[in-house]
């Protein structure tokens, strides 16, 4: 098993765990963590799978750089929202969605 | 020589895993943060070793950045996150 493949597989597991985390966890900060794990997993798959023969491919690396920036942007926005929600309601979980 | 470096790198990684286990359990928040810092330092060490064994001198830059920025986490922790509200310290 090549390095690329090991990390691709790790990435797949991380992705699955991240999604499971986002779905199952109610606490918003943890959800943000889970989302980041998910993203990292996808990035690992992208580079790892492309480099499964352990030859370096710059294209997926560049893509992942782009992806990391996007992930940071999303994380910061999510944090801002969570902090705002906490400031407004004192809650760290999403309130039930009611139509009233 | 390369083999030795690889071995040292592996040893450091094992060391790191050990620290990781502590970090997950550590009794106080401060311990966990200390562990994180230790892991950062160990990571820096691993990176410079990898730079040599993988013939990627750029990894030294990574180590440099890691060493530079590891401080931020620690200070953010000390200045912001470590609160005496929950009384969880020994």
């Amino acid at each position, binding site marked *: 098993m090549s390095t690329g493949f090991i990390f691709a597989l790790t990435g797949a597991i991380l992705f699955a765990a991240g999604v499971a985390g986002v779905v199952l966890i109610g606490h918003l900060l943890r959800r943000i963590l889970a989302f980041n794990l998910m993203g990292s997993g996808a990035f690992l798959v992208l580079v790892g799978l492309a480099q499964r023969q352990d030859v370096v491919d710059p294209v997926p690396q560049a893509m992942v750089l782009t992806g990391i920036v996007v992930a940071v942007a999303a994380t910061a926005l999510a944090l801002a929202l969570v902090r705002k929600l906490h400031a407004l309601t004192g809650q760290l979980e999403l309130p039930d969605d009611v139509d009233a | 020589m390369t083999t030795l470096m690889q071995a040292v790198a592996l040893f450091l990684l094992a060391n790191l895993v050990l620290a990781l286990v502590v970090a997950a359990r550590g009794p106080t928040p401060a311990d966990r943060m200390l562990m994180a810092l230790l892991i950062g330092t160990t990571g820096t060490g691993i990176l410079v070793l990898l730079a040599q064994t993988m013939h990627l001198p*750029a990894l030294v830059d990574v180590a440099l950045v890691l060493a530079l920025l590891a*401080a931020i986490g620690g200070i953010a922790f000390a200045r912001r996150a470590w609160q005496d509200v929950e009384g969880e310290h020994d």
Partner: protein
Amino acid sequence: MKRYSLVVLVLSLASAFVFFLGRAMLELGPTAIDLRAPVAAHLAESGVTHPVTAVLLNYRGYDTLLEIAVLLLALLAILAVVGEAPASPTRAAHPVLQALGRLAVPLMVVVAVYLLWAGAFRPGGAFQAGAVLAAAAVLLHLVGLLPGWSKPRLGLRFGLAAGFALFLAVAAGLLTQGSLLQYPPAAAGVLILLIESGLTVSLALILAGLFLLLSREAEA
């Protein structure tokens, strides 16, 4: 009970997913397209010698343009969410920490400049440099030497947007060459360095802004 079964369901779905995905990954043969060859072949025309930078700013420079837009947009969205609030007065940290700040920040700036300059021929580049600069700003803020943002004033807004605007202008200007972001090989190196320099400043401001905007209430 319902919650428990949900956990079991999601976890078993995730395991099944990983299992099938792993198996499918193992079956994979060699790919039909290998981009390393064209990446290497056009490296001479790309203006840089580091392939990742070539992909990032030349071959797939359009991705990067939009990516910077995403980052600027995130800052904008945060501004829209948190609204305006007066920045609380900064509480200075202990002199030892301030000393660290004074020591580390110039070093970080040096490292950032190095990374920016290195980007053309080895790993590094605008994004990494910007991130290090932003980290420097965060450090200064943490030790109490830099106040949080209440709201970005005109100059700051200009600085935040400048890198992106520059990139956009270059991209549009290069339409005269035949298409968006089509660098003339002779000028590619200079243009990329220009763009990267602009981006470094703006990225640093944006990334720092993400923190400085959010943490202003932290010291209350």
